[in-house]
């Protein structure tokens, strides 16, 4: 392989690996927006909480922070337990956020919910920066000093010629695609999905038809938040630094990814996330790396200017 090709492929792998994370977070955004028409700006911080949930669980299950010789199977079981646990905890958090912060304001103007979302976001970000409370059995809240995620699975390099791919990249992409397909199945093939789409279409009429609107919305939040936790674990294992503010940027970028794909669309979020990851990687790799963070927002502006419904979105006509 020529050097230029190797470099290109390496960027491709790196971009997909980052894009997977954006895609998974974007799935949560898109679902909540699809059902409620609410941009849940606290979603990035739920992702952050997911990483910490995983961190504490891993600490309980594997003291010492490294995999100790009980084989790949043992490590897999533990990784799965940590991920599932974090997803359950985050789902619970999503439920609480919806129940306490959004539901009481649902009848108010849409802007009110947006402001509450920002409030929840700050509560999580700055709440997690407090010094640990003495009465907690674990060091919680974690405080502003970054923590380093333990290695749940040993890293295995899968060399493809000169291109470096690791098992993390493969697992990440695999899990993301599986979750996307699962979500698509839920939305279009289950009773719950049908109810979700009905609520999204018109919550009032759906309620009149006997659909438990509140329960559907709660479950949407639970599902979206659990996805954020999965994204957090997939990100934190290969890139182990976690801190209370690290959900901010990925949260915003995932929002851009959701808009790019057409907010409300599940495959759109996936494609949007991967495209954004690749765009960032190629821009940083082939031009100046300081443009990296600007790319997401450039894309946002361009999409809003030229194709506001996004790649997979449907054009809606606003009736006046």
């Amino acid at each position: 392989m020529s050097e230029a090709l190797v470099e290109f492929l390496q960027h491709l792998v790196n971009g997909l690996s980052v894009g997977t994370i954006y895609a998974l977070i974007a799935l949560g955004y898109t679902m909540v927006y699809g059902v409620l028409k609410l941009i849940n700006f606290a979603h990035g911080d739920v992702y952050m909480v997911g990483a910490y949930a995983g961190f504490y669980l891993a600490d309980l299950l594997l003291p010492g922070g490294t995999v100790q010789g009980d084989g790949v199977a043992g490590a897999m079981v533990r990784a799965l337990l940590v991920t599932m646990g974090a997803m359950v905890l985050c789902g619970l958090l999503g439920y609480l956020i919806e129940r306490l912060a959004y539901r009481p304001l649902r009848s108010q103007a849409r802007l009110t919910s947006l402001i509450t979302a920002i409030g929840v976001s700050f509560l999580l970000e700055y709440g997690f920066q407090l010094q640990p409370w003495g009465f907690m059995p674990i060091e919680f809240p974690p405080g502003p000093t970054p923590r380093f995620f333990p290695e749940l699975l040993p890293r295995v390099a899968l060399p493809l010629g000169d291109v470096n791919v690791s098992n993390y990249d493969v697992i990440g992409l695999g899990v993301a695609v599986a979750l996307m397909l699962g979500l698509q199945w839920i939305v279009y093939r289950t009773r719950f999905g049908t109810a979700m789409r009905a609520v999204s279409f018109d919550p009032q009429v759906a309620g009149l038809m006997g659909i438990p609107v509140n329960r559907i919305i709660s479950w949407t939040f639970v599902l979206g938040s659990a996805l954020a936790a999965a994204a957090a674990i997939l990100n934190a294992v290969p890139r182990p630094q976690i801190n209370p503010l690290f959900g901010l940027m990925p949260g915003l970028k995932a929002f851009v990814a959701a808009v790019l794909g057409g907010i409300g669309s599940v495959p759109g979020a996936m494609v949007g996330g991967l495209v954004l990851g690749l765009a960032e990687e190629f821009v940083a790799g082939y031009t100046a790396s300081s443009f990296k963070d600007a790319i997401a927002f450039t894309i946002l502006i361009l999409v809003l200017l030229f194709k506001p419904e996004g790649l997979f979105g449907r054009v809606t006509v606003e009736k006046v």
Partner: protein
Amino acid sequence: MLRARVLAPFALLLALAACEKKKPSEATPSGAAAATGAGAAPAANAPLVLGHVGSLTGNEATFGDSTDKGIRLAVEERNARGGVKGRQVSVKTYDNQGKQEEAALVTTRLVVDDKVQVLLGEVASKRSLAMAPIADKHKTPMITPSSTNPKVTKEGDTVRPYVFRVCFIDPFQGTVMAKFARETLKLQRVAVLRDVGNDYSVGLADYFLSKFKDLGGEIVDDQSYKAGDQDFKAQLTAIKRKKPEAIYVPGYYTEVALIARQTRELGLAVPLMGGDGWDSAKLYEIARGALEGSYFSNHYSPDDPSPRIVEFVKTYRARHGVVPDSLAAQGYDAARVAMEAMERAPDLSGPAIRDAIAATREFPGVTGVITLDADHNAVKPAVVLKVEGDTGKFVATVQPN
């Protein structure tokens, strides 16, 4: 980002309001005392206060923690010998969580509410830059133990009257590493990876780059990242293609360790090089061996056999159970320079102490003999350390020209 930027002023206002509310209960007694006898000592035996602003938590938590331990050790030793001008010295430390705005906030608090005699801090240049104007404005002398960016003590061509440092500056540190890379390691092709949001890192990268080129080397790539980034593979993949013999990464330990790991993950086996921002026990812990064989410039080496250093390492170890990193040593030196100046000063007003600090000559510090020049910088040698296992092994001492 956008959201944080828009809302940050409000958050700051809230924080200020919170401080304002707290202030009366805390400051009334001392405020009243200051009102009765402005200038004259309110109580002849009240302890003299050194105010320390440091990052005890946050991304660079070990910087503030080590410095604080160094300062406290120096103060304890001084107090055991009778203190300064017959009075005991106390240290008041505020945490800034590694944030600039927080550093400015607590500096004001130390100067206005706590009326400290001397300010000590910060390690990070960008936070010292937030503190310096406040020190000048309130005529409170400030000594930074380890901020190496030239702008800390000098604004354009004017020297900041109240701001000093007890360490060397980046032009020296950057050129030391460039010379070492070129002359000792005989490297020809080096790539640079700098933290664009950090005055320290940008400064070091610039000085390294120009010296390395002067000496006939080639900078094959100049990439950047931002503190808090998780993924550096785009930059590292681009760097790898250029086939450098080493990468100069003058950042702080948290990111450097992650960069080192991702460098190895991409199959790039060249050594990394950096500056004193690497110096932390956490560096080795996070890097998990990825930095083996890398080099960084530093203020001192705890392996140095000179009696002053041996003695300091012994007492610090007895007190804290760990080998002092250079930030602890610098904190120790900064506090000693401050206390010695307070002893020499005719009175304890800000300007008098300032003049005494400015007159510091041939002070026997742990990190070298400290003589403050006209720009308020200490002229001291640097050392180059090589990462071996979980320590930096001493390789060379480089004298300033």
